């Protein structure tokens, strides 16, 4: 351990190396046999609820110790090595905070505990809060904050000490559209500044908005890793569901039934649900229905954003293929 107050040596090499790492909570599996290397950049940790994303993030943050295998951050064990945590910024999934404190007090305290000297902590906290758009509310107690404000404040506690490696557990969950745009912009700015960032989410399009590199987890296991578009192609092999509201759903259905990518049509009052094997072509055909045939469409949604169902399909698909 480095003497307190002295600068820590910064060494090169990968940010994270996970080697056959497993974590159990008693009899409950958190993650199983994960091997993964993170060199840098922004990586999306994608998976449905209970996939083990938060467990992996907590292992990297030093909050959990692996039950088996090893996990290194900048070459050190973050559970045992206190010093390496100075380079990590961790934003938990939960919203719990010390509600009695103002946002400025909270961020200042966390910055000081992360090693920012007392004479610089106030400025560092104010800068961090400004970056996340919380300057106007920084003197208010956290107690009265909305979900979006809490997420912003949490992000400020994560960046105030200028860490090299950020772990953001579901940072976009439940936030309003404005906060969502701001947080995505902030993460992009941090990535441009050369930070290594791991962002978890159970929503594919959230991860897609942030990065092309993803690690897909399901039931504690590493299902796939790599480019998001490759994963997207895998996911797109599952019939994609689109719900279209229209005053004339039967005309729309008649047109779509003539195509070869539609697997199923389900009628509802004033709407038709289309299951398609080729979402891109389906969206093109729907555009054509409106523009060329004049079939009115009032709303279009894709309710099939349940990654659990998609991953269940993928694992079943993989078993069937083998």
């Amino acid at each position: 351990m480095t003497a307190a107050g002295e600068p820590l040596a910064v060494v090169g090499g990968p940010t994270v190396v996970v080697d056959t790492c497993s974590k159990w909570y008693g009899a409950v599996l958190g993650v199983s046999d994960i091997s993964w290397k993170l060199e840098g950049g922004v990586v999306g940790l994608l998976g449905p609820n209970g996939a083990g994303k938060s467990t992996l993030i907590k292992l990297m943050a030093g909050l959990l110790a692996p039950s088996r295998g090893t996990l290194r951050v900048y070459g050190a064990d973050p559970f045992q090595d206190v010093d390496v945590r100075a380079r990590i910024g961790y934003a938990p999934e939960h919203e719990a905070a010390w509600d009695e404190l103002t946002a400025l007090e909270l961020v200042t305290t966390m910055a000081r505990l992360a090693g920012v000297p007392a004479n610089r902590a106030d400025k560092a906290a104010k800068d961090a809060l400004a970056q996340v758009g919380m300057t106007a509310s920084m003197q208010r107690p956290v107690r009265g904050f909305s979900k979006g404000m809490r997420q912003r404040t949490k992000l400020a506690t994560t960046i105030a000490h200028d860490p090299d490696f950020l772990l953001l557990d579901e940072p976009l969950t439940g936030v309003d559209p404005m906060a969502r745009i701001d947080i995505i912009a902030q993460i992009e700015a941090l990535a441009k500044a050369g930070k290594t960032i791991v962002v978890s989410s159970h929503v594919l399009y959230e991860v897609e908005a942030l990065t092309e590199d993803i690690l897909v987890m399901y039931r504690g296991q590493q299902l796939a890793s790599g480019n998001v578009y490759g994963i997207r192609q895998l996911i797109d092999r599952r019939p994609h569901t689109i719900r279209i509201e229209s005053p004339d759903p039967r005309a729309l259905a008649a047109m779509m039934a003539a195509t070869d990518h539609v697997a199923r049509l389900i009628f509802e009052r004033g709407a038709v649900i289309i299951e398609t094997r080729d979402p891109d072509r389906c969206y093109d055909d729907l555009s054509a229905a409106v523009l060329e045939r004049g079939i009115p469409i009032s709303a279009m949604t894709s309710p099939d954003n349940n990654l659990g169902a998609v991953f269940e399909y993928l694992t079943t698909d993989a078993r069937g293929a083998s």
Partner: protein
Amino acid sequence: MSAPAPRTVPSAGDAIGIMAGLTLKRVFRGKLVWFVFLTAGLPTVTALAMRSSSAHDPVKVATSTLSVVQLLFAILAPMLTGSAVGDELGSKTTSYLWSRPVPRWTILVGKLVVLAPLTGLLLMVAWIASLAIGGGLMSGQAIAAVGFGAMIVSVVVAAIATIGPKHGIAFSLLYVLVIDLGLALMPGSLSQLSLVHQTTVLAGLPQGSAEPPLGSALGAALWLVGLAAIWLVVALRQLRTREA
């Protein structure tokens, strides 16, 4: 990619100071503090009741109010320290603290350096007020013993809350009210294990037939320090391996 900036970690002293500041702010901005202050008035109420009785005895006032103060050990220490330590560990805010580059023991000690003296000071003031109002025997040694005993109880309560954080207040209340007071009533060497008993001995007040309690003040102080040390070692070991 730019070269990462050199990092510093806070010293243990800094971390303790920061945690102490955080704890102090939370205590005085929380609602619990009102309950604590109201409860601390109980010895004064007892003293007032005794003052109005016909046979006024300063020693009796002191011993009776001391009993009430000792009962307050069992209530206020769990309310202040048990909740501050247990709630933190039981809730999710621990993840903020444990992901920082500070040893975990500094977080516990940072809370204790505020909460233990606060509990001790509060009970000393409460007792002094009750003695002044009730006309009880004031003894510097006894007042110091109350402060010291309350601080030791706070340490023990913090340790219990570390071991069982989800029920920190309940476990520490159970320990001090049932086990510790039960041990105090036991004959012989078992009573030596009681914090309340050792505080009474340390106070050095005459009991009943004006006979001073058995055992020396120094011995009682050592027992209290020893008991607190054992609990603290257990808590720190628990804290080292606990996961968030």
